[in-house]
C-alpha cells in the first residue's frame, strides 16, 4: 500500500502546523516532538488521510489532540515551566522596529496567559482565517462554543494590551 506523500504534506502544511503547536505548547522542544509525532502517525497509518476533505484541518486536529494529551501529561507541575517558556519564546517573527517588537512580545505573553482552548480558537480564527464553523469542525466543538471562546479571548487580550496598543497606535 502506498503511503501519503509526506514531503508534500510537510511543505504545504508545516508552517501553520508549527505556529499552531507552538502557540499551544509555548515550548520549542515540545513543539518539535508533537510535530514529529504527527508525521510519524501519518507514516504509520497510510490510510489516515483517505477520504479527508481538508488535509490542513485534519492535521491541525491531529496536532491539537496530541498537544492536549501532552499538556495533560505534563499537568500542573509544568505550568511554571510553560510560563517561563512563554516569556522566552515568542510566537511571532522578530522585527527591527522597537514598538512592533514590544507589541509582539506582549501579545505573545498575553496569548500564553489564555486557557489553551481559547488560544486554539483564537489562533485558528486570527492566523488561519477559519470561520467559526470550520474551527468547530476542526476542534470538534459546537460553533457557538468556538465563537464564545474567541470573544472571551479577544476581550482578555484587548484589556491586557489596551495601554500599549493605544500608545503605539
Amino acid at each position, binding site marked *: 500500500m502506498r*503511503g501519503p506523500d*509526506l*514531503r508534500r504534506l*510537510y511543505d504545504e502544511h*508545516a*508552517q501553520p502546523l*508549527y*505556529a499552531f503547536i*507552538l502557540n499551544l505548547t509555548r515550548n520549542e522542544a515540545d513543539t*518539535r516532538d508533537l*510535530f*514529529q509525532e504527527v*508525521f*510519524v502517525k*501519518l*507514516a*504509520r497509518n*497510510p490510510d489516515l488521510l483517505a477520504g479527508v476533505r481538508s488535509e490542513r484541518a485534519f492535521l491541525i486536529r491531529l496536532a491539537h489532540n496530541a498537544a492536549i494529551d501532552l499538556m495533560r501529561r505534563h499537568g500542573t507541575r509544568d505550568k511554571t515551566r510553560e510560563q517561563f517558556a512563554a516569556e522566552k519564546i*515568542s*510566537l*511571532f*517573527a522578530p522585527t527591527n522596529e522597537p514598538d512592533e517588537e514590544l*507589541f*509582539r512580545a506582549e*501579545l505573545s505573553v498575553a496569548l500564553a496567559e489564555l486557557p489553551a482552548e481559547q488560544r486554539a480558537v483564537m489562533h485558528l480564527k*486570527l*492566523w488561519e482565517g477559519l470561520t467559526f464553523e470550520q474551527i468547530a469542525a476542526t476542534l470538534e466543538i459546537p460553533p457557538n462554543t468556538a465563537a464564545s471562546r474567541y470573544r472571551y479571548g*479577544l476581550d482578555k*487580550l*484587548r484589556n491586557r*494590551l489596551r495601554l500599549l*496598543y493605544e500608545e503605539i*497606535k
Partner: protein
Amino acid sequence: MNDDFEQRLQRQPLRQVPAEWREEILAAAGRVSKVESREPMAHWPSTVVTRLLALLWPNPQAWAGLAAVWILILTVDFSMRDKLPVMAEKSAPPPPEVIVELKQQQRLLVELMGPRDTRDADRSKSLAPRPRSELDIEILTA
C-alpha cells in the same frame, strides 16, 4: 466585523518553522514507514494486547474476577482428574482373603435363605400361564 485591534493581531507575522526540522522529521517518519512495511506482522502482539485492553477496559475488576473463577474451576477439574485412576486402582483387585470371606458369607446367605427361595421358585413355576379354573382348584387343595 473586525475592528482595528483584531486586524492588528491578524497582521502579526508568525515565527517560521526551523529549516533543519524538515529533513529530521521526514527522516524519522520515513524510518517508521520503512520498518512498518518491512515487518507488517512484527507488532501484532501489541495490537492484540491493545485491542484486548480496549475490550476489557470498561470493567477490569469484573473481568479479573471472572478469570479467577475460571482458573479455580479448571484447577478443581484437573485435580479431580488426577484422582480418578487412583480410585480405579483401589477397587480393581480385591485380596484373596476378602474373596474367601465374601464366598463364605454368600454360602451362609444361601443356607439361610435357601428354603424360602425354593418355595418361591416353585410357586413361580406353579403360577405359569394356565386356565384360571385349574389355578383355583390347586389353591384350594393345597
